[in-house]
């Protein structure tokens, strides 16, 4: 047998030292001079440390529809400005439908509106138009809606004061929200799911509510209902006849804080408008003293107080028999602003802290017990060679922990199962080699020649066998989510690490221990 190449020994030693250094942050804190790339402990998955995992779906089509509706007002004001009269002006899905009174205005209107709506395609003749949002623009609106929603949700979650929440886009219209160490799933969902659309509209004091409820809604008005309450033992919603026009919206709110309503000694939320909002509010209250002003929260009239006097301070109060936490949550969502589109929670996987800890303990126990059994078995079955394989196995586990820590991978419960499985499979390479050496000895080769050809012949088998397992692990990584992905990660890392330890490390140990001993008569295998 030739002398074992020194560079391989150095490579193994350096890997060993780096592995120990990179694994250390998982057990103890490291000094400040420790290389920063080796100072990170493994991330624990939510299923191990407990926390909230939510997938939120953003209804992006609504964002596009909102956009189209806004453009309808643009069209309306342009037509008014140029005294072009129309019969019909409506939003329908991604389109604006417009019919003019006089088809002679067609060319004039077309020229004006084409300029005003550059991101719409237009079709039409004889005074009828259909403006449709272009594909590219619709995509852009949808994209922005998700981005904005991420921002809004981030601000709301940050207000919870938890550490390291993850809020990230997932696919085209979904948002992943992870809040480690937080287990009030109901509160988190309530906070995320609210659109928090806040609008101020004037009550139409002259309109006839009863007539409107019959279906004769005065032009420019809408009916909005209040919160459901129980009246005379039956559920009841108070209807309000309001002006369609939104005078003020939540986007002009600069701050929202929980306050105590002095009259009823109840929790309330005090809004502070920004300068533009304050000016509008001032002008509005001045012009409409004595009228009612409806505060509409998420499509329901929250209250409709009478404007007693001009309010110039730029603040308003929302009351409504809130509990302390309701008021607190409302203040948070109003501060963070409204979501650009409604959201829906489509998936939740939340783990309580006690289950997380139990999983850590159980996963850890199975790794320890499983490896002890394998170590004992290998030692009995392959004697000294088994011992060598065991050293490689321990090195392998160290390497898995080190690599997982360095690449910032997340350890999950299935991930721990992956480590357990890797232990079983890592010794496979050694079993293959040792069985081959035994065979070579049986056909009468000398011990050193048997070792040489054992390693040589087993090598391609090991590579083939491991690559196929790796294929399965990679497919799993592609398709899996969360914890399952963690299994694919540890399995892949484990397979690759095992190729290094089971082949190179055992070979080096065997080479170094047999090198200077002249003729070896018998192997302890």
């Amino acid at each position, binding site marked *: 047998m030739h002398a074992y190449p020194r560079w391989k020994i150095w490579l193994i030693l350096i890997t060993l030292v780096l592995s120990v250094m990179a694994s250390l942050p998982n057990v103890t804190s490291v000094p400040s001079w420790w290389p920063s790339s080796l100072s990170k402990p493994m991330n624990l998955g939510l299923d191990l440390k407990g926390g909230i995992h939510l997938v939120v779906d953003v209804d992006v089509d609504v964002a596009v529809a909102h956009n189209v509706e806004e453009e309808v007002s643009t069209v309306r004001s342009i037509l008014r400005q140029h005294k072009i009269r129309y019969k019909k002006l409506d939003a329908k899905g991604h389109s604006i439908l417009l019919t003019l009174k006089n088809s002679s205005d067609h060319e004039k209107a077309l020229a004006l509106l084409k300029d005003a709506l550059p991101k719409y395609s237009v079709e039409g003749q004889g005074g009828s138009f259909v403006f449709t949002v272009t594909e590219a623009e619709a995509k852009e609106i949808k994209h922005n809606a998700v981005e904005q929603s991420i921002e809004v949700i981030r601000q709301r979650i940050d207000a919870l004061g938890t550490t390291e929440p993850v809020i990230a886009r997932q696919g085209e219209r979904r948002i992943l929200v992870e809040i480690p160490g937080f287990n009030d799933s109901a509160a988190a*969902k309530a906070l995320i799911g609210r659109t928090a659309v806040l609008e101020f509209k004037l009550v139409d004091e002259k309109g006839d509510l009863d007539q409107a409820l019959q279906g004769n809604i005065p032009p420019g008005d809408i009916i909005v209902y209040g919160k459901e309450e129980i009246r005379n033992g039956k559920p009841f919603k108070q209807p309000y006849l309001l002006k369609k026009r939104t005078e003020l919206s939540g986007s002009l709110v600069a701050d929202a804080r929980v306050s105590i309503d002095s009259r009823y000694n109840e929790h309330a939320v005090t809004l502070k408008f920004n300068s533009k909002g304050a000016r509008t509010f001032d002008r509005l209250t001045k012009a409409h003293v004595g009228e009612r002003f409806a505060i509409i929260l998420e499509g329901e009239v929250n209250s409709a107080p009478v404007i007693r006097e001009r309010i110039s301070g730029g603040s308003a109060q929302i009351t409504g028999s809130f509990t302390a936490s309701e008021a607190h949550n409302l203040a948070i969502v109003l501060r963070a602003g409204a979501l650009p589109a409604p959201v829906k929670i489509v998936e939740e996987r939340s*783990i309580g802290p006690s289950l997380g800890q139990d999983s850590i303990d159980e996963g850890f*126990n199975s790794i320890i017990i499983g490896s002890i059994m394998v170590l004992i078995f290998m030692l009995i*079955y392959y004697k000294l060679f088994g011992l060598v394989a065991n050293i490689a196995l321990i090195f392998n586990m160290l390497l898995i922990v080190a690599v997982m820590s360095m690449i910032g991978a997340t350890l999950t419960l299935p991930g721990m199962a992956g480590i357990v499985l890797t232990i*079983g499979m890592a010794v496979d390479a050694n079993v293959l080699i040792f069985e081959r050496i035994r065979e070579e000895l049986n056909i009468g080769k000398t011990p050193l020649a048997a070792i040489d050809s054992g390693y040589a012949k087993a090598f391609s088998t090991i590579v*083939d066998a491991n690559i196929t397992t790796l*294929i399965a*692990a990679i*497919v799993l990584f592609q398709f899996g989510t969360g914890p399952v992905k963690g299994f694919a990660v540890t399995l892949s890392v484990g397979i690759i690490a095992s190729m290094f330890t089971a082949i190179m490390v055992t070979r080096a140990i065997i080479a170094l221990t047999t090198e200077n001993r002249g003729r070896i008569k018998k192997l302890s295998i």
Partner: protein
Amino acid sequence: MQLINPNSKIDFLGKRKIALGISAFMLFISLIALVPSIRGLNFGIDFTGGSLVEVQFKQAPNIADIREAISPAGYGHAIIQTFGSPEEIIIRVQNKGNSDSSSVSTAILSALKNKFGDQQIDMRRVEFVGPQVGEELTKAGISAVGIAMLAILVYVTFRFELRFALGADAALLHDVMIVLGVFALLGKEFSLPVVAAILAVIGYSLNDTIVVFDRIRENLAANSKLKNPLDEVDVCNASVNQTLSRTLMTSFTTLLVVFALFFLGGEVIHGFAFALLVGIGVGTYSSIFIASPIMLSLAGRFRSSDEELAEMDARP
């Protein structure tokens, strides 16, 4: 120490008819069990969609009391089971229509807290899978298993020959079907981690098969250089025997750790560990008894029996 005789000369391929018979029987039972109207797989909420709430009580509660507590909220039809220990309770509810189902768990938890008191219960786990997500996960699961098999077929064809690849995939399909069949027969919950376990079984079973095939390839190459080459069937038999000790040793060490996982890993990954346990058992069997015969019969390498030859001679 050596448990398996290194010079074993078991005629595995000669017993292929028995083995194929056993496999055909197991596959038949599995297929029958997988028919939804007969038994079918017990899909978890990962695939059906729905809500799951796991709570731990200080004292073992009465299932009837729990049902009573959540009935007013409209969940009287929920599936309520103990999970591992009598204090640990799992409540499962299917998705219903278009209502905002993510609030189901909240309603259940608050109903339980009202009835038993805040101190009595500890929220362990809340899962909710919307109907759309359930559908997506089902598709992803099926395509993952499909893609894995296809990728393996390509790799093995590239490294060996097509007949080896087909033999390996046949063995894989065999293993996957039987694991699924066992899950259907025992009514064990089929969840996302179980799919992960099945993919691991695919990787493992293949690993086993590849080792045998590798030896067959090596021996066939040596055989073709001989003056009087042996029959391929005999070469295969010898190869399976030569690798037998390794196949069994590796399965044994892997089963050791999977047993540790099964008994100590906790209730959450019980199904996962169970799938591995069954899969590794079946995978070991199939790489010895199924993969090689199929590989050979695809190449038409089995000699016909004397009777069959006589019959053929008798034909005009």
